[in-house]
Protein backbone atom coordinates (compact mmCIF):
# COMPACT_ATOMS: atom_id res chain seq x y z
CA UNK A 1 0.00 0.00 0.00
CA UNK A 2 1.45 3.38 -0.91
CA UNK A 3 2.15 6.16 1.51
CA UNK A 4 -0.67 8.55 0.55
CA UNK A 5 -3.28 5.80 0.90
CA UNK A 6 -2.08 4.87 4.36
CA UNK A 7 -2.13 8.53 5.34
CA UNK A 8 -5.72 8.74 4.15
CA UNK A 9 -6.60 5.69 6.23
CA UNK A 10 -5.04 7.25 9.29
CA UNK A 11 -7.27 10.25 8.69
CA UNK A 12 -10.34 8.00 8.45
CA UNK A 13 -9.44 6.30 11.75
CA UNK A 14 -8.83 9.66 13.39
CA UNK A 15 -12.24 10.82 12.19
CA UNK A 16 -13.96 7.74 13.65
CA UNK A 17 -12.21 8.24 16.99
CA UNK A 18 -13.11 11.94 16.97
CA UNK A 19 -16.72 10.94 16.43
CA UNK A 20 -16.50 8.63 19.46
CA UNK A 21 -15.05 11.47 21.54
CA UNK A 22 -17.79 13.82 20.33
CA UNK A 23 -20.45 11.25 21.24
CA UNK A 24 -19.04 10.80 24.73
CA UNK A 25 -18.94 14.58 25.23
CA UNK A 26 -22.54 14.89 23.98
CA UNK A 27 -23.58 12.09 26.36
CA UNK A 28 -21.80 13.93 29.17
CA UNK A 29 -23.88 17.04 28.58
CA UNK A 30 -27.06 14.99 28.25
CA UNK A 31 -26.32 13.27 31.55
CA UNK A 32 -25.54 16.55 33.30
CA UNK A 33 -28.61 18.30 31.88
CA UNK A 34 -31.03 15.65 33.16
CA UNK A 35 -29.23 14.98 36.46
Amino acid at each position, binding site marked *: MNRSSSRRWRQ*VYALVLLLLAAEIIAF*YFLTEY*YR
Partner: protein
Amino acid sequence: MGWLDWTVMIGTLLAIAAYGTWRTRHQRTVNDYLRGGGEMRWFTIGLSVMATQASAITFLSAPGLGYESGLRFVQFYFGLPLALVLIAAFFIPIYYRLRVYTAYEYLEQRFDLRTRLLAASLFLIQRGLAAGLTIFAPAIVLSSLLGWDLNFTNLFVGILVIVYTVSGGTRAVSVTQRWQMGVIFLGMVLAFGILVYHITQEVSMPVALELAGTAGRMQVLDFSFDLDQRYTLWTGLTGGLFLALSYFGTDQSQVQRYLTGRNVRESRLGLMFNAALKIPMQFFILFTGVLVFIFYLYQQPPLFFNEVALERLEEQGYGEELDELQGRYDQNYQQLQEARQLLSESYVAGGHGEASASAKSLFREQLAEDQQLRQELKNLLLEVDPEFKVKDTNYVFLTFVMEYLPAGVVGLILALIFSAAMSSTSSELNALSTTSSIDLYRRLFNREVSEAQHLRVSRWLTLLWGSLAIGFALTASLFDNLIEMVNLLGSLFYGSILGIFIVAFFLRWIKGRAVFWAALVGEAAVLLIHFGRVWHWEWLSFMGTIGYLWYNVIGCGLVVLTAVILQAFGQKRVS
Protein backbone atom coordinates in the same frame (compact mmCIF):
# COMPACT_ATOMS: atom_id res chain seq x y z
CA MET B 1 -53.13 -10.87 15.91
CA GLY B 2 -55.23 -10.31 12.80
CA TRP B 3 -54.85 -11.57 9.24
CA LEU B 4 -53.07 -8.40 8.14
CA ASP B 5 -50.30 -8.91 10.69
CA TRP B 6 -49.93 -12.56 9.74
CA THR B 7 -49.74 -11.64 6.07
CA VAL B 8 -47.16 -8.91 6.63
CA MET B 9 -45.03 -11.11 8.87
CA ILE B 10 -45.08 -14.36 6.91
CA GLY B 11 -45.02 -12.51 3.57
CA THR B 12 -41.93 -10.46 4.53
CA LEU B 13 -39.98 -13.43 5.87
CA LEU B 14 -40.83 -15.78 3.02
CA ALA B 15 -40.12 -13.11 0.41
CA ILE B 16 -36.65 -12.40 1.84
CA ALA B 17 -35.78 -16.12 2.10
CA ALA B 18 -37.10 -16.85 -1.40
CA TYR B 19 -35.30 -13.86 -2.91
CA GLY B 20 -32.03 -14.86 -1.22
CA THR B 21 -32.32 -18.43 -2.47
CA TRP B 22 -33.21 -17.39 -6.02
CA ARG B 23 -30.61 -14.62 -6.38
CA THR B 24 -27.77 -16.90 -5.29
CA ARG B 25 -28.84 -20.17 -6.89
CA HIS B 26 -25.70 -20.53 -9.04
CA GLN B 27 -22.78 -21.19 -6.72
CA ARG B 28 -20.12 -23.09 -8.63
CA THR B 29 -16.92 -22.68 -6.67
CA VAL B 30 -15.91 -22.87 -3.03
CA ASN B 31 -14.74 -19.26 -3.33
CA ASP B 32 -18.29 -18.29 -4.37
CA TYR B 33 -19.92 -20.34 -1.66
CA LEU B 34 -17.68 -19.49 1.27
CA ARG B 35 -16.35 -16.05 0.32
CA GLY B 36 -19.20 -14.74 -1.79
CA GLY B 37 -16.85 -14.63 -4.77
CA GLY B 38 -14.89 -11.90 -2.98
CA GLU B 39 -16.77 -9.09 -4.67
CA MET B 40 -18.83 -7.36 -1.99
CA ARG B 41 -18.86 -3.57 -1.69
CA TRP B 42 -18.42 -1.74 1.59
CA PHE B 43 -22.09 -0.97 2.09
CA THR B 44 -23.10 -4.63 1.85
CA ILE B 45 -20.24 -5.61 4.18
CA GLY B 46 -21.19 -2.90 6.65
CA LEU B 47 -24.83 -3.97 6.76
CA SER B 48 -23.82 -7.62 6.97
CA VAL B 49 -21.55 -7.01 9.96
CA MET B 50 -24.30 -5.00 11.64
CA ALA B 51 -26.98 -7.61 10.90
CA THR B 52 -24.82 -10.43 12.23
CA GLN B 53 -24.27 -8.66 15.53
CA ALA B 54 -27.87 -7.54 16.02
CA SER B 55 -29.77 -10.62 17.10
CA ALA B 56 -33.43 -10.85 18.04
CA ILE B 57 -32.52 -10.44 21.68
CA THR B 58 -30.95 -7.04 20.85
CA PHE B 59 -34.36 -5.79 19.79
CA LEU B 60 -36.24 -7.49 22.59
CA SER B 61 -33.95 -6.64 25.46
CA ALA B 62 -32.42 -3.26 24.55
CA PRO B 63 -35.74 -1.34 24.56
CA GLY B 64 -36.58 -3.25 27.76
CA LEU B 65 -33.30 -2.07 29.30
CA GLY B 66 -34.10 1.48 28.19
CA TYR B 67 -37.50 1.18 29.87
CA GLU B 68 -36.09 -0.27 33.06
CA SER B 69 -32.85 1.61 33.60
CA GLY B 70 -32.45 4.19 30.85
CA LEU B 71 -29.65 4.85 28.41
CA ARG B 72 -26.70 3.58 30.46
CA PHE B 73 -26.26 0.38 28.45
CA VAL B 74 -24.93 2.36 25.48
CA GLN B 75 -21.60 2.72 27.35
CA PHE B 76 -21.03 -0.96 26.70
CA TYR B 77 -20.43 -0.06 23.03
CA PHE B 78 -17.76 2.61 23.60
CA GLY B 79 -14.94 0.12 23.03
CA LEU B 80 -16.39 -0.98 19.70
CA PRO B 81 -15.09 1.83 17.43
CA LEU B 82 -11.63 1.46 18.99
CA ALA B 83 -11.65 -2.28 18.31
CA LEU B 84 -12.84 -1.83 14.72
CA VAL B 85 -10.09 0.69 14.01
CA LEU B 86 -7.46 -1.75 15.32
CA ILE B 87 -8.92 -4.59 13.24
CA ALA B 88 -9.12 -2.45 10.10
CA ALA B 89 -5.55 -1.22 10.52
CA PHE B 90 -3.80 -4.44 11.57
CA PHE B 91 -5.94 -7.54 11.02
CA ILE B 92 -7.55 -6.97 7.62
CA PRO B 93 -4.37 -6.37 5.52
CA ILE B 94 -2.85 -9.61 6.82
CA TYR B 95 -6.00 -11.67 6.24
CA TYR B 96 -6.08 -10.34 2.68
CA ARG B 97 -2.40 -10.87 1.99
CA LEU B 98 -2.71 -14.53 2.97
CA ARG B 99 -6.03 -14.92 1.15
CA VAL B 100 -7.51 -16.95 3.99
CA TYR B 101 -11.07 -18.25 4.26
CA THR B 102 -11.04 -18.34 8.05
CA ALA B 103 -9.25 -16.38 10.74
CA TYR B 104 -7.82 -19.64 12.10
CA GLU B 105 -6.07 -20.45 8.80
CA TYR B 106 -3.81 -17.51 9.50
CA LEU B 107 -2.76 -19.06 12.81
CA GLU B 108 -1.17 -22.03 11.05
CA GLN B 109 0.81 -19.76 8.76
CA ARG B 110 1.92 -17.67 11.71
CA PHE B 111 2.39 -20.44 14.32
CA ASP B 112 1.57 -24.08 13.68
CA LEU B 113 -1.24 -26.52 12.95
CA ARG B 114 -2.15 -27.31 16.54
CA THR B 115 -2.67 -23.63 17.46
CA ARG B 116 -4.95 -23.28 14.44
CA LEU B 117 -6.91 -26.38 15.41
CA LEU B 118 -7.18 -25.25 19.03
CA ALA B 119 -8.66 -21.87 18.08
CA ALA B 120 -10.94 -23.39 15.42
CA SER B 121 -12.24 -26.03 17.84
CA LEU B 122 -12.91 -23.50 20.58
CA PHE B 123 -14.87 -21.46 18.04
CA LEU B 124 -16.85 -24.47 16.80
CA ILE B 125 -17.85 -25.57 20.30
CA GLN B 126 -18.87 -22.13 21.44
CA ARG B 127 -20.60 -20.93 18.28
CA GLY B 128 -22.16 -24.32 17.56
CA LEU B 129 -24.01 -24.15 20.87
CA ALA B 130 -24.78 -20.46 20.62
CA ALA B 131 -26.38 -20.83 17.16
CA GLY B 132 -29.16 -22.89 18.73
CA LEU B 133 -29.74 -20.19 21.30
CA THR B 134 -29.99 -17.46 18.66
CA ILE B 135 -33.09 -19.30 17.46
CA PHE B 136 -34.37 -20.37 20.85
CA ALA B 137 -34.13 -17.09 22.79
CA PRO B 138 -36.64 -15.08 20.73
CA ALA B 139 -38.85 -18.15 20.24
CA ILE B 140 -39.41 -18.50 23.97
CA VAL B 141 -40.41 -14.82 24.32
CA LEU B 142 -42.73 -14.97 21.31
CA SER B 143 -44.34 -18.23 22.33
CA SER B 144 -44.96 -16.92 25.81
CA LEU B 145 -46.39 -13.58 24.63
CA LEU B 146 -48.40 -14.79 21.67
CA GLY B 147 -49.21 -18.29 22.77
CA TRP B 148 -47.44 -19.82 19.77
CA ASP B 149 -46.10 -23.31 19.95
CA LEU B 150 -42.44 -23.12 20.95
CA ASN B 151 -41.34 -26.00 18.72
CA PHE B 152 -43.16 -24.59 15.73
CA THR B 153 -41.48 -21.20 16.17
CA ASN B 154 -38.04 -22.83 16.46
CA LEU B 155 -38.63 -24.95 13.38
CA PHE B 156 -40.04 -22.09 11.31
CA VAL B 157 -37.03 -19.81 11.86
CA GLY B 158 -34.51 -22.67 11.66
CA ILE B 159 -35.75 -24.23 8.45
CA LEU B 160 -36.15 -20.91 6.65
CA VAL B 161 -32.55 -19.97 7.47
CA ILE B 162 -31.24 -23.39 6.48
CA VAL B 163 -32.94 -23.25 3.09
CA TYR B 164 -31.18 -20.12 1.85
CA THR B 165 -27.91 -20.54 3.73
CA VAL B 166 -27.38 -24.09 2.43
CA SER B 167 -28.39 -23.11 -1.07
CA GLY B 168 -26.57 -19.80 -1.53
CA GLY B 169 -23.83 -19.79 1.12
CA THR B 170 -22.09 -16.55 2.04
CA ARG B 171 -23.63 -14.60 -0.84
CA ALA B 172 -27.15 -15.58 0.27
CA VAL B 173 -26.29 -14.49 3.80
CA SER B 174 -25.21 -11.03 2.57
CA VAL B 175 -28.08 -10.60 0.12
CA THR B 176 -30.75 -11.48 2.69
CA GLN B 177 -29.11 -9.42 5.41
CA ARG B 178 -29.49 -6.26 3.30
CA TRP B 179 -33.25 -6.77 3.20
CA GLN B 180 -33.46 -7.93 6.78
CA MET B 181 -31.71 -4.74 7.90
CA GLY B 182 -34.21 -2.81 5.79
CA VAL B 183 -37.10 -4.44 7.67
CA ILE B 184 -35.35 -3.78 10.99
CA PHE B 185 -34.81 -0.06 10.26
CA LEU B 186 -38.32 0.40 8.94
CA GLY B 187 -39.87 -1.36 11.95
CA MET B 188 -37.84 0.57 14.51
CA VAL B 189 -38.48 3.94 12.84
CA LEU B 190 -42.24 3.21 12.68
CA ALA B 191 -42.39 2.13 16.33
CA PHE B 192 -40.41 5.24 17.29
CA GLY B 193 -42.67 7.54 15.27
CA ILE B 194 -45.85 6.04 16.71
CA LEU B 195 -44.48 6.37 20.26
CA VAL B 196 -43.62 10.04 19.67
CA TYR B 197 -47.11 10.58 18.24
CA HIS B 198 -48.83 9.01 21.28
CA ILE B 199 -46.65 10.87 23.77
CA THR B 200 -47.12 14.27 22.13
CA GLN B 201 -50.89 13.76 22.34
CA GLU B 202 -50.45 13.96 26.12
CA VAL B 203 -47.50 16.24 26.72
CA SER B 204 -44.84 18.21 24.86
CA MET B 205 -41.64 16.31 24.10
CA PRO B 206 -39.29 18.50 26.22
CA VAL B 207 -41.50 18.00 29.28
CA ALA B 208 -41.75 14.27 28.54
CA LEU B 209 -37.96 14.05 28.47
CA GLU B 210 -37.74 15.99 31.74
CA LEU B 211 -40.04 13.38 33.29
CA ALA B 212 -37.80 10.59 32.01
CA GLY B 213 -34.76 12.49 33.28
CA THR B 214 -36.27 12.83 36.75
CA ALA B 215 -36.89 9.09 36.70
CA GLY B 216 -33.18 8.54 35.94
CA ARG B 217 -33.79 7.30 32.41
CA MET B 218 -31.87 9.98 30.50
CA GLN B 219 -28.48 9.58 32.14
CA VAL B 220 -25.89 7.92 29.93
CA LEU B 221 -22.51 8.22 31.58
CA ASP B 222 -21.41 6.65 34.81
CA PHE B 223 -17.88 7.56 35.88
CA SER B 224 -17.76 5.36 38.98
CA PHE B 225 -14.95 2.83 39.37
CA ASP B 226 -17.19 0.31 41.11
CA LEU B 227 -16.47 -3.12 39.60
CA ASP B 228 -19.94 -4.31 40.59
CA GLN B 229 -21.47 -1.75 38.25
CA ARG B 230 -21.69 -3.57 34.96
CA TYR B 231 -22.05 -0.54 32.68
CA THR B 232 -19.71 2.37 33.33
CA LEU B 233 -17.59 4.51 31.04
CA TRP B 234 -14.52 2.49 32.07
CA THR B 235 -16.00 -1.00 31.62
CA GLY B 236 -17.26 0.14 28.22
CA LEU B 237 -13.88 1.44 27.11
CA THR B 238 -11.85 -1.51 28.46
CA GLY B 239 -14.04 -4.61 28.77
CA GLY B 240 -16.10 -3.48 25.78
CA LEU B 241 -12.92 -3.02 23.73
CA PHE B 242 -11.70 -6.54 24.52
CA LEU B 243 -15.08 -8.08 23.83
CA ALA B 244 -15.39 -6.25 20.50
CA LEU B 245 -11.82 -7.16 19.54
CA SER B 246 -12.51 -10.85 20.18
CA TYR B 247 -15.87 -10.78 18.49
CA PHE B 248 -15.04 -8.80 15.36
CA GLY B 249 -11.40 -9.83 15.04
CA THR B 250 -11.41 -13.54 15.82
CA ASP B 251 -14.98 -14.86 15.62
CA GLN B 252 -15.40 -16.39 12.18
CA SER B 253 -19.08 -15.39 11.98
CA GLN B 254 -17.85 -11.76 11.81
CA VAL B 255 -14.47 -12.25 10.13
CA GLN B 256 -16.17 -14.04 7.24
CA ARG B 257 -18.41 -11.02 6.66
CA TYR B 258 -15.56 -8.65 5.91
CA LEU B 259 -13.47 -11.23 4.07
CA THR B 260 -16.14 -11.17 1.34
CA GLY B 261 -14.91 -7.72 0.30
CA ARG B 262 -13.59 -6.89 -3.16
CA ASN B 263 -10.40 -5.55 -1.59
CA VAL B 264 -8.91 -4.22 1.65
CA ARG B 265 -10.52 -0.84 1.07
CA GLU B 266 -14.09 -2.19 0.87
CA SER B 267 -13.63 -4.32 3.99
CA ARG B 268 -12.16 -1.46 5.98
CA LEU B 269 -14.93 0.90 4.93
CA GLY B 270 -17.51 -1.72 5.90
CA LEU B 271 -16.04 -1.85 9.39
CA MET B 272 -15.77 1.94 9.64
CA PHE B 273 -19.45 2.12 8.70
CA ASN B 274 -20.14 0.12 11.86
CA ALA B 275 -17.63 2.06 13.95
CA ALA B 276 -19.51 5.25 13.09
CA LEU B 277 -23.08 3.98 13.27
CA LYS B 278 -23.21 1.36 16.04
CA ILE B 279 -23.34 3.76 18.99
CA PRO B 280 -26.02 6.05 17.47
CA MET B 281 -28.04 2.97 16.51
CA GLN B 282 -27.83 1.43 19.95
CA PHE B 283 -28.68 4.79 21.48
CA PHE B 284 -31.73 4.99 19.25
CA ILE B 285 -32.96 1.51 20.30
CA LEU B 286 -32.46 2.31 23.99
CA PHE B 287 -34.12 5.69 23.53
CA THR B 288 -37.13 3.91 22.03
CA GLY B 289 -37.27 2.02 25.35
CA VAL B 290 -37.18 5.32 27.23
CA LEU B 291 -40.13 6.49 25.12
CA VAL B 292 -41.97 3.29 26.09
CA PHE B 293 -41.30 4.26 29.72
CA ILE B 294 -42.76 7.75 29.15
CA PHE B 295 -45.72 6.23 27.33
CA TYR B 296 -46.44 4.00 30.33
CA LEU B 297 -46.55 7.06 32.58
CA TYR B 298 -49.82 7.82 30.79
CA GLN B 299 -51.15 4.30 30.19
CA GLN B 300 -50.97 1.83 33.02
CA PRO B 301 -48.46 -0.94 32.30
CA PRO B 302 -48.99 -4.48 33.59
CA LEU B 303 -47.55 -5.33 36.99
CA PHE B 304 -45.33 -7.91 35.33
CA PHE B 305 -44.65 -8.01 31.60
CA ASN B 306 -44.45 -11.78 31.24
CA GLU B 307 -48.12 -12.57 31.78
CA VAL B 308 -47.64 -16.32 31.63
CA ALA B 309 -45.92 -15.99 35.00
CA LEU B 310 -49.01 -14.37 36.51
CA GLU B 311 -51.23 -17.16 35.20
CA ARG B 312 -48.85 -19.60 36.77
CA LEU B 313 -49.20 -17.85 40.14
CA GLU B 314 -52.97 -18.18 39.95
CA GLU B 315 -52.74 -21.83 39.01
CA GLN B 316 -50.51 -22.45 42.02
CA GLY B 317 -53.18 -21.03 44.36
CA TYR B 318 -51.61 -17.61 44.87
CA GLY B 319 -54.62 -15.82 43.35
CA GLU B 320 -55.49 -13.97 46.53
CA GLU B 321 -51.98 -12.62 47.09
CA LEU B 322 -51.85 -11.60 43.45
CA ASP B 323 -55.19 -9.73 43.66
CA GLU B 324 -54.10 -7.92 46.77
CA LEU B 325 -50.81 -6.89 45.13
CA GLN B 326 -52.62 -5.85 41.95
CA GLY B 327 -54.98 -3.68 44.04
CA ARG B 328 -52.10 -1.87 45.71
CA TYR B 329 -50.38 -1.52 42.35
CA ASP B 330 -53.49 0.06 40.76
CA GLN B 331 -53.83 2.45 43.65
CA ASN B 332 -50.18 3.43 43.49
CA TYR B 333 -50.45 4.00 39.76
CA GLN B 334 -53.20 6.56 40.41
CA GLN B 335 -50.91 8.37 42.81
CA LEU B 336 -48.05 8.11 40.36
CA GLN B 337 -50.20 9.79 37.73
CA GLU B 338 -51.06 12.61 40.11
CA ALA B 339 -47.39 13.09 40.95
CA ARG B 340 -46.53 13.02 37.25
CA GLN B 341 -49.20 15.65 36.54
CA LEU B 342 -47.87 17.89 39.30
CA LEU B 343 -44.34 17.55 38.01
CA SER B 344 -45.20 18.24 34.39
CA GLU B 345 -47.11 21.35 35.45
CA SER B 346 -44.10 22.53 37.39
CA TYR B 347 -41.90 21.96 34.32
CA VAL B 348 -44.30 23.90 32.12
CA ALA B 349 -44.07 26.72 34.67
CA GLY B 350 -40.28 26.77 34.39
CA GLY B 351 -39.19 23.91 36.62
CA HIS B 352 -37.53 25.96 39.36
CA GLY B 353 -38.15 26.67 43.01
CA GLU B 354 -39.33 24.72 46.00
CA ALA B 355 -42.61 23.55 44.47
CA SER B 356 -40.73 21.93 41.62
CA ALA B 357 -38.27 20.23 43.97
CA SER B 358 -41.07 18.77 46.07
CA ALA B 359 -42.93 17.62 42.90
CA LYS B 360 -39.73 15.88 41.81
CA SER B 361 -39.24 14.07 45.07
CA LEU B 362 -42.91 13.04 45.22
CA PHE B 363 -42.66 11.63 41.67
CA ARG B 364 -39.51 9.72 42.57
CA GLU B 365 -41.13 8.35 45.72
CA GLN B 366 -44.08 7.03 43.73
CA LEU B 367 -41.74 5.44 41.20
CA ALA B 368 -39.81 3.78 44.01
CA GLU B 369 -43.09 2.46 45.42
CA ASP B 370 -43.93 1.13 41.97
CA GLN B 371 -40.56 -0.66 41.88
CA GLN B 372 -41.15 -2.02 45.37
CA LEU B 373 -44.50 -3.55 44.34
CA ARG B 374 -42.89 -5.17 41.28
CA GLN B 375 -40.19 -6.55 43.53
CA GLU B 376 -42.82 -8.00 45.86
CA LEU B 377 -44.35 -9.80 42.91
CA LYS B 378 -40.95 -11.15 41.90
CA ASN B 379 -40.43 -12.42 45.43
CA LEU B 380 -43.78 -14.15 45.25
CA LEU B 381 -42.79 -15.77 41.94
CA LEU B 382 -39.54 -16.95 43.50
CA GLU B 383 -41.47 -18.37 46.43
CA VAL B 384 -43.47 -20.53 44.02
CA ASP B 385 -40.42 -21.52 41.99
CA PRO B 386 -36.94 -20.54 43.21
CA GLU B 387 -35.56 -21.23 39.73
CA PHE B 388 -37.99 -18.88 37.99
CA LYS B 389 -36.49 -16.18 35.74
CA VAL B 390 -37.96 -13.05 37.28
CA LYS B 391 -36.51 -10.64 34.74
CA ASP B 392 -39.23 -9.42 32.40
CA THR B 393 -37.06 -6.94 30.46
CA ASN B 394 -37.31 -8.93 27.23
CA TYR B 395 -41.10 -8.78 27.31
CA VAL B 396 -41.54 -5.00 27.71
CA PHE B 397 -41.20 -3.85 24.11
CA LEU B 398 -43.34 -6.57 22.53
CA THR B 399 -46.06 -6.14 25.15
CA PHE B 400 -46.27 -2.50 24.12
CA VAL B 401 -46.20 -3.42 20.43
CA MET B 402 -48.99 -5.99 20.73
CA GLU B 403 -51.26 -3.70 22.71
CA TYR B 404 -50.79 -0.29 21.18
CA LEU B 405 -49.47 -0.51 17.63
CA PRO B 406 -51.90 -0.61 14.70
CA ALA B 407 -52.60 -3.72 12.64
CA GLY B 408 -49.93 -4.29 10.02
CA VAL B 409 -47.22 -2.59 12.05
CA VAL B 410 -47.42 -5.39 14.63
CA GLY B 411 -46.74 -7.90 11.85
CA LEU B 412 -43.82 -5.79 10.67
CA ILE B 413 -42.28 -5.62 14.15
CA LEU B 414 -42.59 -9.38 14.51
CA ALA B 415 -40.94 -9.72 11.09
CA LEU B 416 -38.22 -7.44 12.48
CA ILE B 417 -37.60 -9.75 15.45
CA PHE B 418 -37.48 -12.82 13.20
CA SER B 419 -35.28 -11.04 10.64
CA ALA B 420 -32.82 -10.19 13.38
CA ALA B 421 -32.80 -13.82 14.55
CA MET B 422 -32.38 -15.11 11.01
CA SER B 423 -29.64 -12.67 10.03
CA SER B 424 -27.50 -13.71 13.00
CA THR B 425 -28.22 -17.41 12.61
CA SER B 426 -27.37 -17.46 8.90
CA SER B 427 -23.97 -15.87 9.55
CA GLU B 428 -23.32 -18.36 12.32
CA LEU B 429 -24.22 -21.43 10.26
CA ASN B 430 -22.19 -20.10 7.35
CA ALA B 431 -19.15 -19.55 9.60
CA LEU B 432 -19.50 -22.93 11.32
CA SER B 433 -19.65 -24.68 7.97
CA THR B 434 -16.66 -22.72 6.64
CA THR B 435 -14.52 -23.44 9.69
CA SER B 436 -15.34 -27.14 9.76
CA SER B 437 -14.89 -27.42 6.00
CA ILE B 438 -11.62 -25.42 5.67
CA ASP B 439 -9.90 -25.94 9.01
CA LEU B 440 -10.94 -29.52 9.68
CA TYR B 441 -12.17 -31.35 6.57
CA ARG B 442 -9.81 -30.00 3.93
CA ARG B 443 -6.81 -29.52 6.21
CA LEU B 444 -6.95 -32.79 8.10
CA PHE B 445 -8.76 -35.31 5.91
CA ASN B 446 -8.66 -34.38 2.28
CA ARG B 447 -6.05 -31.85 1.16
CA GLU B 448 -6.43 -32.77 -2.51
CA VAL B 449 -10.22 -32.45 -2.56
CA SER B 450 -11.76 -31.40 -5.88
CA GLU B 451 -13.66 -28.12 -6.17
CA ALA B 452 -17.02 -29.83 -6.74
CA GLN B 453 -16.54 -32.24 -3.86
CA HIS B 454 -15.45 -29.46 -1.49
CA LEU B 455 -18.50 -27.39 -2.43
CA ARG B 456 -20.76 -30.38 -1.78
CA VAL B 457 -19.17 -31.05 1.60
CA SER B 458 -19.52 -27.38 2.59
CA ARG B 459 -23.25 -27.51 1.74
CA TRP B 460 -23.73 -30.67 3.78
CA LEU B 461 -21.84 -29.16 6.68
CA THR B 462 -24.11 -26.08 6.62
CA LEU B 463 -27.10 -28.40 6.71
CA LEU B 464 -25.55 -30.39 9.54
CA TRP B 465 -24.83 -27.32 11.69
CA GLY B 466 -28.30 -25.95 10.93
CA SER B 467 -29.92 -29.20 12.02
CA LEU B 468 -27.79 -29.27 15.16
CA ALA B 469 -28.86 -25.69 15.95
CA ILE B 470 -32.53 -26.56 15.52
CA GLY B 471 -32.12 -29.73 17.59
CA PHE B 472 -30.45 -27.71 20.30
CA ALA B 473 -33.19 -25.07 20.21
CA LEU B 474 -35.87 -27.77 20.46
CA THR B 475 -34.31 -29.30 23.55
CA ALA B 476 -33.11 -26.06 25.18
CA SER B 477 -36.32 -25.60 27.14
CA LEU B 478 -35.74 -28.93 28.88
CA PHE B 479 -32.66 -27.67 30.68
CA ASP B 480 -33.11 -24.68 32.92
CA ASN B 481 -29.61 -23.35 33.09
CA LEU B 482 -28.58 -24.11 29.55
CA ILE B 483 -28.87 -20.57 28.26
CA GLU B 484 -26.67 -19.17 30.96
CA MET B 485 -24.21 -21.96 30.46
CA VAL B 486 -23.87 -21.30 26.75
CA ASN B 487 -23.51 -17.55 27.22
CA LEU B 488 -20.91 -18.22 29.85
CA LEU B 489 -19.05 -20.60 27.58
CA GLY B 490 -18.50 -17.73 25.14
CA SER B 491 -16.94 -15.55 27.82
CA LEU B 492 -14.78 -18.41 29.06
CA PHE B 493 -13.21 -19.06 25.63
CA TYR B 494 -13.11 -15.64 24.01
CA GLY B 495 -10.23 -14.27 26.08
CA SER B 496 -7.81 -17.07 25.21
CA ILE B 497 -8.64 -16.94 21.50
CA LEU B 498 -8.08 -13.17 21.50
CA GLY B 499 -4.79 -13.67 23.36
CA ILE B 500 -3.55 -16.01 20.61
CA PHE B 501 -4.45 -13.45 17.95
CA ILE B 502 -2.92 -10.51 19.83
CA VAL B 503 0.36 -12.43 20.06
CA ALA B 504 0.06 -13.38 16.38
CA PHE B 505 -0.42 -9.81 15.19
CA PHE B 506 1.61 -7.72 17.60
CA LEU B 507 4.37 -9.88 19.10
CA ARG B 508 6.09 -11.22 16.03
CA TRP B 509 9.04 -12.73 17.92
CA ILE B 510 6.86 -15.23 19.77
CA LYS B 511 6.59 -18.64 18.13
CA GLY B 512 3.95 -21.38 17.99
CA ARG B 513 5.17 -23.54 20.81
CA ALA B 514 5.04 -20.72 23.37
CA VAL B 515 1.63 -19.45 22.31
CA PHE B 516 0.02 -22.90 22.24
CA TRP B 517 0.99 -23.67 25.83
CA ALA B 518 0.19 -20.11 26.85
CA ALA B 519 -3.33 -20.54 25.44
CA LEU B 520 -3.80 -23.72 27.47
CA VAL B 521 -2.48 -22.04 30.61
CA GLY B 522 -4.70 -18.98 30.04
CA GLU B 523 -7.77 -21.12 29.41
CA ALA B 524 -7.09 -23.28 32.47
CA ALA B 525 -6.65 -20.17 34.61
CA VAL B 526 -9.95 -18.64 33.44
CA LEU B 527 -11.77 -21.94 34.11
CA LEU B 528 -10.12 -22.17 37.54
CA ILE B 529 -11.12 -18.60 38.41
CA HIS B 530 -14.66 -19.18 37.23
CA PHE B 531 -15.27 -22.45 39.02
CA GLY B 532 -13.39 -21.22 42.07
CA ARG B 533 -15.89 -18.39 42.28
CA VAL B 534 -18.82 -20.73 41.71
CA TRP B 535 -17.60 -22.91 44.57
CA HIS B 536 -16.76 -19.88 46.76
CA TRP B 537 -13.06 -20.51 47.16
CA GLU B 538 -11.74 -18.21 49.86
CA TRP B 539 -8.67 -16.88 48.02
CA LEU B 540 -10.80 -15.64 45.12
CA SER B 541 -13.08 -13.54 47.29
CA PHE B 542 -11.06 -10.39 46.47
CA MET B 543 -12.55 -10.54 42.97
CA GLY B 544 -15.99 -9.71 44.34
CA THR B 545 -18.78 -10.16 41.86
CA ILE B 546 -16.94 -9.14 38.70
CA GLY B 547 -18.92 -9.97 35.60
CA TYR B 548 -18.16 -12.37 32.80
CA LEU B 549 -16.98 -9.38 30.73
CA TRP B 550 -13.71 -9.36 32.66
CA TYR B 551 -12.92 -12.98 31.83
CA ASN B 552 -12.05 -11.74 28.33
CA VAL B 553 -9.54 -9.29 29.70
CA ILE B 554 -8.06 -11.78 32.19
CA GLY B 555 -7.89 -14.65 29.67
CA CYS B 556 -6.31 -12.50 26.97
CA GLY B 557 -3.84 -10.89 29.37
CA LEU B 558 -2.76 -14.24 30.77
CA VAL B 559 -2.20 -15.78 27.35
CA VAL B 560 -0.08 -12.83 26.20
CA LEU B 561 1.94 -12.72 29.44
CA THR B 562 2.54 -16.47 29.55
CA ALA B 563 3.54 -16.53 25.88
CA VAL B 564 6.08 -13.76 26.48
CA ILE B 565 7.56 -15.58 29.49
CA LEU B 566 7.62 -18.99 27.77
CA GLN B 567 9.27 -17.57 24.66
CA ALA B 568 11.88 -15.64 26.61
CA PHE B 569 12.61 -18.60 28.89
CA GLY B 570 12.65 -21.07 25.99
CA GLN B 571 15.09 -18.94 23.99
CA LYS B 572 17.43 -18.59 26.93
CA ARG B 573 17.49 -22.34 27.37
CA VAL B 574 18.28 -22.90 23.70
CA SER B 575 21.05 -20.29 23.66
